[in-house]
């Protein structure tokens, strides 16, 4: 290599070619007229290939657009442009981020002359800038989100305020540890004081009864105890400065930090005076109604009991008359006897009802019985009262069981009478007594229209009738099924019901055998 002194023309040419940036010159049409070796290296083209091409053609599409919409007008108007970031497209397809400076020689507005361009590779700078850009965008996003969150919080607070106001709730809060409660404006109203008066914790406490203050302190202590964190909700009366007593409910929650220490305690006061009065009035009404009901049932018991004695006298008298007179008066005497017997059964039902309701359930005396015999005896009596109706008795199983014979007979009488009243008159009523391994069962079946589904849930409640039109021979006042169920329960058993149009209606009473 030949040594050349600085300033030597060929040395200057060398410096141009090998400068640490790409250099090129374009003419008025934008076509490259001269290009340095460094610039050729940036693009992958040889100088002869580049001369004649436009500078723009070396750029990516985005850079071309930017070149047209920003760079060119700037250059036209200002004569020079510096530090614009563009992207060169290398011959092999690589994209090279570059910074471009350009200056027009002897700029005259409206007349295009040569433009010298310097191109600096900015890959690293581009990377840093991308990172900066990303960071900036992230910061902007965060700011945007923070603003959104602020706006959302403002909306939420406004909504909360509206909700608090429309529900007449007043807020209190305390910073912990050791902070006293602060009451928001408006709490004064609860104390019968001017609405805008500031209320201190001491003022507020002065309106509470000393017992309630102690209760409240205990509740607060429990709410702030990190190991308890009890829900704080307490009700007490406030004696107003205006002499009016107002009931308030104070509910709140403590907030704990990561160490489990309470840092904030806040809540609301609600004026519950009206609600409390309404509740008290309701409780009073309910108690009164209950009292009246108990009285009525007691009255029924007393009356039915007291009716029995004169009725027994009537029955005894009729019996005596029957023994004496078998002539013309016999039908009259029979009617007296039958009516008295019916009245007696009614009284018995009423007594059972009152005992079931007021005496804590029916009492049964379970003794060894033969259920088949109990049913057979009972059916003999029923058949006498219903001549002309078929009643069949089926027996399944053998052996002794335990039960109250009189009460079980009462069940059979009630269920069979019902079956006769509501069943198809031309079809038999079938009673099946079952002695199973562990249970005794009584099934009473009749054909006929099923019991409407709507009636079934309440059928075993007192004073509900199966049918509004009382049929001939019915003696029911709606206590029959109620008593049946009570007898089943008193035996430790239960009553069930199946009723369909095809199979008819079957009541099944099941009680333990032993």
């Amino acid at each position: 290599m030949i040594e050349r002194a600085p300033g030597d023309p060929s040395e200057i040419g060398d410096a141009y070619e090998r400068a640490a940036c790409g250099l090129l010159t374009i003419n008025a049409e934008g076509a490259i007229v001269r290009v340095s070796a460094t610039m050729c290296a940036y693009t992958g083209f040889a100088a002869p290939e580049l001369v004649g091409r436009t500078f723009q053609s070396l750029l990516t599409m985005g850079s071309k657009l930017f070149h047209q919409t920003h760079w060119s007008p700037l250059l036209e108007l200002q004569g020079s442009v510096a530090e614009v970031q563009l992207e060169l497209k290398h011959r092999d397809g690589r994209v090279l981020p570059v910074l471009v400076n350009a200056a027009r020689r002897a700029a005259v507005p409206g007349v295009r002359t040569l433009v010298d361009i310097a191109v600096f590779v900015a890959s690293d700078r581009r990377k840093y800038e991308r990172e900066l850009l990303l960071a900036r965008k992230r910061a902007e996003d965060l700011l945007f989100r923070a603003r959104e969150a602020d706006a959302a919080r403002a909306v939420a607070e406004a909504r909360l305020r509206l909700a608090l106001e429309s529900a007449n709730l007043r807020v209190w809060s305390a910073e912990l540890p050791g902070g006293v409660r602060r009451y928001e404006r408006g709490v004064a109203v609860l104390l019968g004081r001017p609405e805008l008066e500031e209320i201190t914790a001491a003022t507020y406490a002065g309106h509470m009864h000393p017992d309630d203050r102690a209760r409240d302190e205990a509740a607060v202590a429990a709410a702030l105890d990190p190991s308890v964190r009890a829900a704080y909700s307490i009700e007490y009366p406030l004696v107003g400065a205006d002499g009016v007593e107002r009931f308030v409910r104070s509910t709140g929650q403590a907030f704990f930090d990561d160490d489990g220490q309470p840092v904030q305690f806040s809540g609301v006061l609600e004026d519950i005076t009206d609600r409390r009065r309404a509740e008290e009035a309701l409780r009073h009404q309910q108690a009164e109604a209950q009292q009246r009901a108990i009285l009525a049932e007691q009255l029924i018991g007393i009356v039915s009991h007291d009716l029995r004695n004169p009725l027994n006298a009537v029955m005894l008298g009729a019996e005596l008359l029957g023994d004496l007179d078998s002539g013309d008066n016999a039908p009259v005497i029979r009617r007296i006897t039958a009516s008295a017997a019916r009245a007696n059964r009614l009284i018995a039902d009423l007594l059972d009802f009152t005992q079931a309701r007021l005496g804590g359930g029916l009492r049964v005396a379970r003794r060894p019985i033969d259920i088949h015999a109990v049913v057979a005896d009972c059916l003999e009596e029923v058949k006498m009262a219903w001549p002309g109706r078929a009643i069949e008795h089926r027996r399944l199983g053998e052996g002794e069981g335990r039960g109250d014979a009189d009460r079980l007979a009462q069940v059979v009488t009630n269920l069979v009478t019902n079956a006769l009243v509501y069943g198809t008159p031309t079809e038999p009523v079938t009673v099946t007594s079952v002695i199973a391994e562990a249970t005794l069962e009584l099934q009473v079946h009749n054909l006929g229209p099923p019991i409407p589904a709507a009636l079934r849930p309440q059928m075993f409640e007192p004073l509900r009738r199966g049918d509004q039109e009382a049929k001939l021979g019915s003696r029911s006042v709606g206590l029959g099924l109620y008593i049946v169920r009570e007898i089943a329960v008193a035996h430790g058993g239960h009553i069930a019901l199946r009723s369909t149009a095809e199979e008819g209606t079957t009541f099944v009473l099941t009680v333990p055998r032993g």
Partner: protein
Amino acid sequence: MSKTLIERHNIHVLGRGPIDMIFAHGYGCDQNMWRLLTPAFEDRYRIILYDLVGSGRSDLGAYDRKKYGTLEGHARDVLAIASELARGPVVFVGHSVSAMIGLLAGVAEPSRFRAQVMIGPSPCYINDGDYQGGFERSDIASLLDTLDSNYLGWASAMAPKIMGAPDQPELGAELTNSFCRTDPEIAKHFARVTFSGDNRADLPKLTTRSLVVQSSDDLIAPRFVGDYLARTLPNATLRVVENIGHCPHLSAPGPIIESMREFLEP
């Protein structure tokens, strides 16, 4: 005259002629683009220069992304300026995207326009079947990326710095601060609106006589587009000017002035 309108659009009025001429700059820069053209018309026209909201020294705070989400928003501004400032039907000169803004304004209220001059217009930049707008959608994404990489520059006054123009002392500091600069986010939004728009269906509705000035070599508005416009606009004259680039009013002001005069004062 409403003061806010003047401020919002950085409006400048020049000349004393009987006819009003509104100049609307294209995407990228601002009303300074017209500085080589306006002196030629100041004697016979009253010239109204303005910056599109979001560009130049317009009120950036008035840039409502919903209103300016389509070119219609800018067209409404043209009509507002015409109705506030003009004394009669105006000559509207629009460069690039502003030619389409003028088109929409002219379709909406034809009586406000005497003539329209469209410099480097394109009703649709994206190729679509037989229509050759010149670009693919990915090209627009690439532009947005380039805008992003000049983001820092725009924001921190690092670039594009005007290196000073000793031979043009009239370009003061005020100009260098505003020329081709704007909020980068707005620039991107406006770029998206500009380059993804399609106003081909509006072309047949323009009744005003129009001049389409087409550069012989323009990357952004190629010859195909100029021919398409001249064919589709009902009352258009096409003039092809020898020029390379998208801003013939800067690089070839003489031929532009000549074609405009010919068109406006035959």
